[in-house]
């Protein structure tokens, strides 16, 4: 087991390295860099000042030299400074992290708590009214565009309930009440497609497991249906569901960018987007690298949990 984990971790490092290289090169190879934006914005920046800015940002060095310097700093823990505000990037990321993490974790929890029981209910009562109702809802839930739903939710809530969440972001520790009010709508928006997905997956996975022979044996032994379900069927059915939930990490990260934009939440997605619009390379590459690293880490965790649950795949 530890060998498996160690092997997986070892593979991750070159992966992250290659991502950083690709990002770095991509951002710098395209014509038009940060100094150009500054020039455009200020309008009056003289070519000498622009050249000086470029030099201070190391943009005039050859790409591979820039990369190696950057790498050297990253290893020491310094991810550079924002080109725009000269804030250390690490601080920016850490500032935005709690917001995004809260959003993602709550969405995940909500969708699992709602999706799994619904899926079980649909599978157990196959073709019952509940099932037939949930199936189309599931597909619709998957197809709803997040941003549209967010916009609709804001509209409906403000029109019918005449209620708007507090505007400026309050952290959970400062004021839990306000924070929960703020995070309610974003979580609903983000969680809905996941609920639909988890529900469908739980249902199909459970249906497949219920058709297996050992379930028939358990029933033949005389176990009550509930016991059959909880002791035998559910544990095995949950395995693919865990994988799916883990894969949602990527979707959550991408979705958080949009949601944070719509609801004006100062999270990592928002940081990335603003940096993107301003061509703030250091922030962009650090943020994307961070997201990729978290995503890879999440996948790793899912794989480990999967290996733990299903010993068969441990030795591949």
């Amino acid at each position, binding site marked *: 087991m530890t060998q498996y984990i160690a092997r997986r971790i070892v593979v991750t490092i070159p992966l992250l390295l290659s991502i950083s290289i690709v990002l770095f090169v991509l951002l710098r190879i395209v014509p038009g860099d940060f100094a150009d934006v500054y020039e455009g914005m200020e309008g009056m920046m003289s070519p000498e000042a622009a050249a000086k800015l470029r030099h201070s940002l190391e943009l005039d060095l050859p790409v591979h030299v820039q990369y190696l310097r950057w790498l050297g700093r990253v290893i020491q823990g310094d991810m550079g400074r924002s080109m725009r505000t000269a804030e250390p990037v690490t601080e920016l990321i850490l500032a935005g992290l709690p917001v995004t993490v809260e959003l993602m974790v709550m969405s995940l929890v909500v969708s699992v708590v709602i999706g799994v029981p619904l899926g079980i209910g649909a599978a157990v009562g196959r073709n019952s009214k509940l099932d037939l109702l949930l199936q189309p809802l599931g*597909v619709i839930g998957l*197809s709803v565009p997040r941003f*549209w739903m967010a*916009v609709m939710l804001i509209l409906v809530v403000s029109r019918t309930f005449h209620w708007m969440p507090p505007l400026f972001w309050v952290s959970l520790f400062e004021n839990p009440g306000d924070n929960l009010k703020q995070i309610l709508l974003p979580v609903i928006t983000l969680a809905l497609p996941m609920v639909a997905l988890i529900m469908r997956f739980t249902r199909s996975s459970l249906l497949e497991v219920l058709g297996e022979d050992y379930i028939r044996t358990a029933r033949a032994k005389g176990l009550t249906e509930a016991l059959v379900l909880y002791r035998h069927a559910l544990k095995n059915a949950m395995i693919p569901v865990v994988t799916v939930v883990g894969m949602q990490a*990527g979707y959550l990260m991408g979705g958080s*960018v949009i949601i944070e934009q719509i609801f004006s939440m100062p999270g990592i997605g928002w940081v990335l987007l603003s940096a993107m619009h301003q061509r703030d390379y250091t922030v*962009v590459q650090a943020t994307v690298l961070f*997201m990729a690293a978290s995503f890879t880490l999440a996948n790793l965790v899912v794989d480990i949990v999967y290996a733990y649950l299903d010993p068969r795949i441990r030795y591949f």
Partner: protein
Amino acid sequence: MKSAAIDVHLQGRAFPTLDGIQAVGRVIGKHWVGTLGMFIVLVVIAVGVFAPHFAPYLPDEQLGARLDSPSPQFSLGTDEFGRDVLSRIICGARISLYVGVVSVSISLVFGGSLGMIAAFFGGRVDSAIMRCMDLLFSIPSLVLALVITGTLGPSLTNAMLAIGIVYTPRFARVARGPTLSIMQQPYVEAARSIGAGHLRIMLRHVLPNILASLIVQSTLAFSTAILTEASLSFLGLGTQPPDPSWGTMLGTGRKFMEFAPWVAVFPGLAIMIAVLGFNLLGDGLRDFFDPRIRRRAQ
């Protein structure tokens, strides 16, 4: 499957008989999900292709009063420049279809061939290709699309390119799996022993067998492409105004939600219907091609 059921009922009589119609009805009833999806998709395609015929006004014409609510003259209202929302939505269908076709073609062709090649040659080629795919996989798709469009510059073409790139690894995986198992089949060995070259084996033996999964994946990719393009345009990194992409309309219309919600609501509804149609179609196709379900049906 379908023709067998109908043949038994028809028994030589010409269609349509009541029995024949009932048989078709039964088949459609069993596959109502896919049929509904196909219906929606066909409507969307028709609207997109024949957009100029359906749209009452030009999408760029500033005819009406600004931010006018839906009226007999402008069925879905007007936007902030006085343009007819309905016409813009109809022309937006064209853009969405365009995006879908181009980006899915890119990822299908590149991803599919890479996956086939990886599984076909195996060994180091396989690991090299799949390593690259893993790299693309490890960045969340929207983030990757964001970065690519952001660096290349926001435009429709770059958005299509970005979406195509983002979806390539998925197609590679979908193509690689079945190809691996096909390579083990005796007929491949037989073909090689009579001197069939690589290309011939790939095109003649591998491709027809992985076609089913590729088709299903393409349909689902289409819906995601539409959604991703809308997201990118919404964030300002995709289609640029004044092009009537549904995502851009939603993005700019957001400002007027308080007093003119129709500007944003209807494009979003259009997105949802189109994505829903393709998802249903993809689901229906997947069930149709799934050998287990087919066997159970017979």
